[in-house]
Every structure is written in structure tokens, then in C-alpha cells.
């Protein structure tokens, strides 16, 4: 029996979030006595497989038809490997990659699934998982029936796993391309290039709201402060809707959920949907001209004032 960690990668390296999923898998394996294996799927995987093997034995599924993560092919592959390895659990980092593919794999495996898990415990031998509901207003404790179990975890809730002393073995999984589903065709990806860290992986996140009316303004204040703090830049839904920032920068119930060491909210009033995406940050700073803004009620530090005036002051102070 094994616990499979479905790895997310960029073609060269594991994504840091997958190392958090690995931490959970190792801990679950310590309870169950199962073996932890990383499942790496894609095309041209030599360097990813080498990187992944630093952390665990790796099952490598390398095929040109798996170059892009289409749900039909990936879910089928995950289900096939799960069955062959008799995996008792499947764990992955909770990203749009896993949210797209793992529920489909669950259906193929007749398996129970819990997403966005932030904690767990064993009570009388039963695994109880904690996950937020109602836009983060409530924490649910859930139990899953049957096997395998499919779990996605929030990377920010768990530390990243350390490499092994000796690299794990690499097991090549051969795929017959003609048996892979062929229902969908990947056309392409359009993203705004950024040199900043990924939102869900950053130690510091600086986010902006309505006061920023253009992309240039957003960069001048939010982007610059993020850069000074070596952080990621995020935003509210309103800015994405207005076309000022791309969707992948949105923090909230339906955007990205972040929990950095420091979250700086610039001109963000604090709708519950936005709070759901950031309220578990360790330290929250709110800067807003409205002293009654709900963001202040969940902030560690609050500063009332115009963000256009305060951000340059902050940058100056940080430089000293």
C-alpha cells in the first residue's frame, strides 16, 4: 500500500506547494505504515523526476500526450496508477491544477474527497480532516468513507518537506497513448509575466483594492511596495473585473487563498469574500482612508490615511 502525492511542477522543478502536500503524506504514512510515492505526470520529465526523487521515490509518467494537464488524461492516469499501486490515499496541493483533476480521478476511483484541508487528527484510529466552509466563516471537521481517500491540502497550512538523505528510486510508468482519453484539446495559456514570487508561496503579500484605477497606478504603489518587501502582489476581485490586474492575482474565496507571514492590504475595505482568502495570514496590515473599513477588524496593525501618500512613505522608511 502507498500514499501517492500528485506532484505539480513547472517542467523542471516540483512546485513548493507539492512539498507541503508531501509533509502531510509523510505524516499520514507514519500513522498507517504505508509508503509515500510522488507521482509526476507530463512530457520530458528528466529534470523534474530528478528533482522529485530528492524527496521520495517517484513514479514517472512521461508521454507526449501528457504534455499539458488536461483533466481527462491526467485523471485517468492517476486512477490507473492508484489502482496498480493499491494506493490508500492520494494527496496534492490545493491549486486549480488539483481542483480540476482530482475530483474527476475520485469519481473514476469511486473515492471520497476532501479539498482545501488545513489540519487533521486521528480520533480512535479514524482520520478527521479540517477544512474551511462558508467563505472561511466556519471550520468543518469531516470524515471520509471508504478507500482510497483523496485529499487536497492548503500549502500555507503545512511546512515544506525536507529532502531525503538518499534520493528515492525512479519508477518509469509506461503509458499506451491510444488508451488515453482524447476529449479535449489544449490550445494555450495566456499569463502576465511577473518576476515576483507566486502568491500562495510568498512570505509577504501586498494587495491593492479600489483606490488603484489603472495598471500603472497599481504597479507604482502595490507592485513597488511588494518588490521592496520581496513579496508577491495581489488584488481584490474589483481590480480584476476592471481589467487592472489579471485574474491569477486575485485573493479571496474564489481566487487564491494565501497565509503569508505578512499581508499588507492597501485600500481594501474587506468584503467577506476577500477576507476568506487572507485572514489566516500571520500579521495583517490595513491601510485605508476609511477608519470604519472592516479590514481593520481583522488587522494586526491599522493605519488610516490615503494609500497614495502612505505607500511612498513606507517605501522610504523601509529603505532606511
Amino acid at each position: 500500500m502507498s500514499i501517492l502525492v500528485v506532484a505539480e511542477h513547472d517542467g523542471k522543478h516540483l512546485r513548493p506547494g507539492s512539498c507541503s502536500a508531501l509533509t502531510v503524506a509523510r505524516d499520514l504514512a507514519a500513522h498507517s505504515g504505508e509508503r509515500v510515492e510522488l507521482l509526476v505526470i507530463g512530457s520530458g520529465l528528466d529534470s523534474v523526476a530528478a528533482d522529485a526523487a530528492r524527496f521520495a521515490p517517484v513514479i514517472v509518467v512521461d508521454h507526449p500526450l501528457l504534455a499539458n494537464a488536461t483533466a481527462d488524461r491526467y485523471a485517468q492516469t492517476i486512477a490507473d496508477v492508484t489502482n496498480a499501486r493499491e494506493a490508500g490515499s492520494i494527496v496534492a496541493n490545493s491549486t486549480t491544477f488539483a481542483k480540476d483533476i482530482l475530483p474527476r480521478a475520485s469519481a473514476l476511483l469511486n473515492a471520497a474527497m476532501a479539498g482545501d484541508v488545513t489540519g487533521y487528527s486521528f480520533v480512535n484510529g479514524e482520520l478527521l480532516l479540517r477544512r474551511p466552509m462558508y467563505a472561511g466563516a466556519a471550520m468543518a471537521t469531516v470524515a471520509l468513507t471508504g478507500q482510497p481517500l483523496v485529499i487536497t491540502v492548503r500549502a500555507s497550512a503545512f511546512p515544506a518537506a525536507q529532502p531525503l538523505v538518499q534520493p528515492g528510486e525512479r519508477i518509469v510508468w509506461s503509458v499506451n497513448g491510444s488508451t488515453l482519453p482524447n476529449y479535449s484539446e489544449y490550445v494555450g495559456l495566456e499569463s502576465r509575466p511577473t518576476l515576483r514570487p507566486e502568491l500562495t508561496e510568498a512570505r509577504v503579500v501586498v494587495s491593492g483594492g479600489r483606490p488603484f484605477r489603472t495598471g500603472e497606478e497599481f504597479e507604482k504603489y502595490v507592485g513597488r511596495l511588494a518588490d521592496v518587501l520581496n513579496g508577491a502582489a495581489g488584488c481584490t476581485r474589483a481590480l480584476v473585473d476592471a481589467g487592472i490586474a489579471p485574474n491569477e492575482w486575485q485573493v479571496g474565496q474564489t481566487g487564491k487563498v494565501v497565509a503569508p507571514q505578512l499581508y499588507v492590504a492597501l485600500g481594501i475595505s474587506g468584503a467577506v469574500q476577500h477576507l476568506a482568502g487572507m485572514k489566516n495570514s500571520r500579521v495583517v496590515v490595513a491601510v485605508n482612508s476609511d477608519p470604519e473599513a472592516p479590514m481593520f477588524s481583522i488587522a494586526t496593525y491599522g493605519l488610516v490615511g490615503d494609500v497614495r501618500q502612505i505607500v511612498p512613505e513606507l517605501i522610504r522608511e523601509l529603505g532606511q
Partner: protein
Amino acid sequence: MRQCLDDEMKILVPTKRVPSTDEGVRIRPDGSGIEDTALVYIINPFDAIALEEALHIREQRGSEVEVTAVSIGNADFDSELRTALAMGADRAVRVDFEGAIDPWSVAQVLAAVVRREKPDLVLMGKQAVDDDSNQAGQMLAGLLNWPQATFASKIEFVDPARLSVARETDRGLETVIVRLPAVVTTDLRLNEPRYASLPALMKAKKRPIEMISHRDLGVSPEPKVRIVHLEQIAIDRVCVRVADAAELVHRLRYEAKVI
């Protein structure tokens, strides 16, 4: 492969009844559920977007497109189905069901509805704002062995049998082409759902809601996820109001030690 012809197309839109979470929800002190007095119920906002898109497709392609809203629950769920009719759905179907339900059982029931209704397209929200699971659509596609396109922010017909879908992912906007029949789940920016007008709501009160028992569908949904306990998440920070940027930076450096 089935061809979806211009002059006949069926779209199934699952619409879940959920409490509005805009004002936040309160959890019962014993952790057994949410305080349901004084709750306002609505069509799950993502499902409303799916319904709007289905109506939009019908408006573009003509009246031969049939839009059916489907819901799984007891008679209370009729009110949101009537809202769906008032928005413009041609038919409303309720699978009568009482009790706890999880994404797995939703997918089982919807798969049975799909086998009965034979839609060309299932359009549904990417997640329901009560349990925030984001699973039912993907599970349905897996059970049916249909293609899926999740988190859609743009849907266009390439030809009568294929859709081009722009998907909102963590890495950016991804475009996929899926063959019909397919399951597409909708994200926020796909459209702005129309409001049901008061006269339309009044008219919808007189329209029939087709009721099916889940036994007639041949499924008895057994949840695989059991909620053991719910608790309110409380944030116990007390905001320290600082005077200026200098004090803020000082406190972040020497008090919170995060920079």
C-alpha cells in the same frame, strides 16, 4: 459521436439552493450546523452565472435550445427553481431528496438525470458557496466519461459540436476545446446574471416544477463525506492603530519581526 445540431440543443443547469454568505454565517454553539433562522437563501451565485450563460446561448442560437434547471432537495428548493424559471429557464426539475448530501452524491444524482434528460451540455457553477467544495462538476464529468472544462470565463462555439473555453487557472487564462456532450463549470467573470423581474417571478409561481424521486432515477445517494463538527472561525487579532508609516515599519521590524 453525437452531433449537436443547430436546431436542437439541450442544456442542463444544476442550481443549488444555498444560504447567502454575504453577511457571513453563524454556527450553532453545539457545532451541529449553521443557525438557519433569518437566513436568506439564493441560487448558488456560480450556478446563476451558469444559468445566465445557458440563456445567453439560447438567445444567440434560437428558441430550439432548451434550458432545464435542476435541483436536488425538498420542497423548500422550489423557490430557487422558480427564480430560475423567472430568469428564463424553459423547465425546472427537482429531484426530491431529504438529508445530507455531498459532491459525490450530487454527481451520482446528476449523472442519472443526465442519462434521462440527455443534454448536450451541462453548465454549472465551479463551486457552491456553502461547502466551497469545487468537486461536483468534475465528478459528474468523470462518471459520464465526458470532457470537462472547469472555471470558465469565456465560452464560444467553434462549431456546433465543439466549445472553446477560456479557463481561469492559478497560472493564467488557459484555453481548451472540448467536444460535446461536455460538462463546463463557470467562474465569476463569465457574465453578470440577469435579475428575475417581479412579473416574471409572479408568473413563475404558476408554472410546474417536475418532480422526480431519486428512487425513480435508480440512485440512492450515500454521502462519502460526513461533517462531524462545525465551528465558527474567530479572528482574535486586536488591531493596533499606528500613527504613521514610521511607526508601522518600526513595529513590523521590532515587534512582529516579519521584515
